[in-house]
């Protein structure tokens, strides 16, 4: 299921998306277009939440 938004070729894209740096890019639109289930949306939100936390820790 998650493979549809998490292909290896899009690894960087997904990481940019979840850590917020590429959230407004065209690539980000490609990711959201592929979100087709509640579970995918939840996983994306979870990964983004953890990435934000990791960013905060790094800044400290």
């Amino acid at each position, binding site marked *: 299921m998650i493979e549809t938004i998490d292909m290896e070729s899009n690894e960087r894209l997904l990481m940019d998306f979840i850590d917020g740096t590429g959230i407004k890019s065209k690539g980000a639109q490609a990711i*959201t277009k592929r979100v087709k289930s509640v579970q995918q949306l939840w996983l994306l939100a979870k*990964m*983004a939440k953890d990435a934000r936390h990791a960013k905060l820790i790094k800044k400290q």
Partner: protein
Amino acid sequence: MNNYTDAQYIEGLKARSPQVTRDFFYQLCNYTLNDIRHSMMKDHVEYDDLVNELFLYLSQHDWHRLDTFSAINECHLSTWIIKVSWRFFWKQRHRLLGYDNCDMDTNGIKESETDSPDIDIIMDVKQTLDDMPNRRYADLLRKMLLEGHDAEEMAMLYHTTEANIYNIKHRAILMFIKIYVSRK
């Protein structure tokens, strides 16, 4: 906490350094593994079990999986491991939670659907949808992801184009993530 660089983490893991390995799994991965343990595994799995599973996965073929990180510049190991961990444990969750042997009916739906870990996920998503200030965005996500309407159907329903539906969906997902990240 030791402030290892990403390269030092990778080098230490591959060299089987006990200190680096401990810091990697018990400090760098701590927040994510605890989140996975709590929200995906419902605390039915111990933290050490998750560490064990992730260690076995990453260390296969002389830590080959880490090489897929090395190939990507300008991203941090702390972000990469979040994606890898969630993806890995998502695939493993039914086995780890003991759902492997559940009987399936002809539609492929578990007979004891109420026991499914996805119920909590759906509730979590619904709660966030309820919290979204833009009701149109929430309504679109509800219809597309919960009720299964495709973009073509949504375009007819909203009297707009499919391309515009994808634009709205994109903005809706960004808002969903913003709300989700801020409310937890």
